[in-house]
């Protein structure tokens, strides 16, 4: 299933310069993202995953290297790329509905039309009845759902998801994993999903790209197309891949 490459990062490096010394966050990362795949970027905490997503989103400039989207280099933020932020980044002064609408609002879509679209995605993430709630009144899992609906409603080609379930309890996390796959199969888009959780990576990914400790370098790539969906956390093949990845991770600690 060789699919078309939609986004290509080549030789991305990022160094933060400061008076207390320079800090390499990312070192020579090259990767391809294929259309409509679920790509997981797996890396240990603080290795530079968020920085890499910020570069792809056009929020941060790489020190060197280029990112191309459909063959064109990315210079700033771009309506083809939406972001589900690690700490939700919901606007607390807006209701769930108004948060989901912002992508369309800033594009100038008339109110009635964007209401309809936002309503559709709020329902898709299971938040019917919470349209008028403010983020403060929502649980952690519900906030991330709003964040996911907001990203989808902007109608991007690529969705970046930065550890969206990282702050959730185990139970909620499992159900959200299942749900994100359901949404992905209904609303086919390219997803780049960041996590530091190996089990989550194996459950979700078509492909996993594993990163080293900081500075992040590509360590290994795993093709999981052999694992059929829906996947089972205790399936022998699932467990084998999981162990293989975690063995690789541990090597880094030595």
């Amino acid at each position, binding site marked *: 299933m060789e699919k078309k490459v939609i986004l290509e990062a080549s030789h991305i490096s990022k160094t933060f310069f400061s008076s207390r010394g320079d800090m390499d966050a990312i070192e020579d990362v090259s990767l391809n993202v294929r259309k409509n795949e679920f790509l997981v970027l797996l890396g240990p905490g603080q290795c530079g995953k968020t920085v890499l997503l910020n570069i792809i989103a*056009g929020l941060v400039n790489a020190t060197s290297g280029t990112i191309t989207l459909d063959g064109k280099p990315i210079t700033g*933020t771009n309506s083809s790329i939406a972001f589900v932020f690690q700490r939700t980044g919901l*606007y607390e*002064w807006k209701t769930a509905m108004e948060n989901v609408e912002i992508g369309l609002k*800033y594009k100038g879509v008339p109110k009635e039309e964007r209401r309809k679209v936002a309503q559709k995605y709020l329902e898709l993430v299971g938040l019917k009845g919470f349209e008028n709630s*403010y983020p*403060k009144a929502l649980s952690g899992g519900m906030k991330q759902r709003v964040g996911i609906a907001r990203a989808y409603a*902007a109608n991007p080609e690529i969705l970046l998801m930065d550890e969206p379930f990282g702050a959730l309890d185990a139970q909620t996390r499992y159900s959200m994993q299942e749900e994100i796959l359901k949404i992905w199969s209904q609303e086919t888009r390219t997803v780049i999903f960041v996590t530091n959780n190996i089990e989550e990576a194996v459950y979700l990914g078509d492909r996993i790209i594993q990163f080293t400790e900081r500075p992040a370098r590509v360590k290994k790539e795993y093709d999981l197309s052999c694992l059929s969906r829906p996947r089972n956390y205790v399936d022998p093949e699932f467990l084998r891949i999981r162990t293989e990845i975690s063995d690789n991770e541990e090597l880094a600690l030595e």
Partner: protein
Amino acid sequence: MKTKNNPLMENRSLPYKIFYYISPCLLLIAFLIFWQAVAASGRTLLPTPYEALERLFTIWTGTIAKKPMIYHVFMSVRRILTALLISIGVGVPFGVAMGWNKIFRAIFKPLFEVIRPVPPIAWVPLFTLWFGTGEGSRIMIIIMGVFMPIVVNSYTGVTMVPEINFDVGKVFGAKSMDMLFDVVLPSSLNAIFAGIRTAVGGGWMVVLASEMLAARSGIGYLIMQGSNANDLELAIVGMFMIGVLGAVFAYGFDFLERGLCPWRRK
């Protein structure tokens, strides 16, 4: 945000709770007894609490300096409200512009930092020279007192907007004006209101001072009258009115803030 239950009250024994609610009343009673004792001793001009209270009721029927009491209250309220409205109308956009635009900040911040430490009352000679001794001059002095906290808080509010809010805006395509009105302003409303609250508190001080200096009306004038005519009851009634109006203003602006910021309601 208020919690539903008073946290001090949780897991407390009943005697503690009784003490917690009774002690302020006891203090007030002790204060009144002390006041009564001093007044009754006859060695000062201090009226008794009862006399002061009686005056608080009868004062509304008489006149002071040929004007009814309500006129004096109205004049003070009008002065502070005029100054507040002008300062909010000019100060909030000014502070936001200073936080939002680097060039604007570079031009006005130094000037502002120089003017800021000057106490409002210090402007009296200049304003009297420029605007005379009338109402305009008084309002200008009050503005000098309330304008600063409003500008400073609006400015700080804008500079403290979390970076993530800008990132979200950029990712979802916010243009410059979207960013200002849809992101920066609502993010800083909290700080802006904090500035207004500070301004109201400081504003009453300046109103009083300006009325004590040169005015024929207002609560500050009443207090000065009380002092000049050895009518301490009048001065005490004036002090009491300031307390009441201060509380009314504080509640009023809280109410306004809750109306403008529905997301912060419980």
